[in-house]
């Protein structure tokens, strides 16, 4: 199928998601001497429309390339960004798409996408253990990295996790987190 421009992609999402679509932004940056650009689309969607957004992306590109889930702790809410890329395999044509979902800390749940994209299992497990977001219907919810290190319930990526300080390995005579920088 023919390739769409970034603005056409944003408009098609708006049409497909209706109410679930909050905003769409396009970012472009020029590089090096010849000033070719690379292009990125940020899509802000609501949690209810999230799975439909991933479906719609699979219609634009068969087997979209899913990269990672990044999560940011913003105080009262946690923002998850699902990074995808489409139109790979051709010179200068790839567009990165980031689907962003904001979750309030009182209700940290998001549906899984492993039935659409089987390779997403690792990154969903990592988000679950590191940030404390519950991924509903995940086929294999075991902890990925911390199983031998920390007990359950501690989420290192959260900024308000108080229990983590006990586990920091601090050199003798120093205080953690650089608190002794004046000394």
């Amino acid at each position, binding site marked *: 199928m023919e390739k769409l421009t970034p603005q056409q992609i944003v408009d098609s999402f708006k049409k497909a998601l209706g109410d679930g679509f909050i905003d769409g932004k396009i970012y472009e940056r020029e590089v090096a001497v010849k000033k070719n650009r690379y292009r990125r689309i940020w899509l802000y969607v609501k949690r209810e429309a999230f799975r439909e957004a991933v479906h719609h992306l699979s219609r634009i590109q068969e087997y979209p390339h899913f990269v990672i889930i990044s999560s940011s702790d913003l105080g009262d809410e946690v923002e998850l960004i699902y990074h995808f890329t489409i139109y790979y395999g051709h010179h200068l044509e790839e567009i990165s798409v980031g689907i962003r979902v904001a979750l309030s800390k009182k209700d940290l749940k998001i549906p899984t996408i492993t039935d659409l994209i089987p390779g997403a299992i690792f990154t969903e497990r990592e988000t679950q253990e590191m940030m404390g977001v519950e991924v509903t219907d995940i086929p294999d919810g075991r902890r990925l990295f911390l199983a031998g*290190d*920390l007990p359950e319930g501690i989420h290192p990526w959260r900024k308000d996790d108080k229990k983590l300080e006990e586990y920091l390995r601090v050199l003798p005579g120093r205080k953690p987190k650089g608190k002794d920088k004046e000394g």
Partner: protein
Amino acid sequence: MSLKAFNRALWVYHLNTGSCNGCDIEILAVLTPRYDAERFGIMLVGSPRHADVLLATGPVGRSMEDSVRRIYEQTPDPKVVMAVGNCGIEGDVFHEAYSLVGPIDQIIPVDVYVPGCPPRPEAIIEGVVKAWAKLETLAKQGVA
């Protein structure tokens, strides 16, 4: 320094406790034809039970602590432990991580320290020579 009491080649077991592999590829560079420690008889073995020297790299993660202790106990005496690289000596950039239990000498006793991030192959060879001298002393004393 005379190296006559120890009349066989030095066998080395490489123990990776969670390092970034920088020191590990320099250790392997010591054995390849450019630096060629193999002409002295130094050889990498696949099991700690055959080893004379334990080359340990990396800051020790909490999940690796048991393995490190067990491997130390499996190595027969006389033995020498070398800590290669800054992470194993005192933590380097990882010193405040929540998943690490300390530099190697908090877990097993270390005899030779080779600092550097990563140390050059020449520095590792010098460390092995010092370890060899120490093994000589231990063998002469008849340490069981």
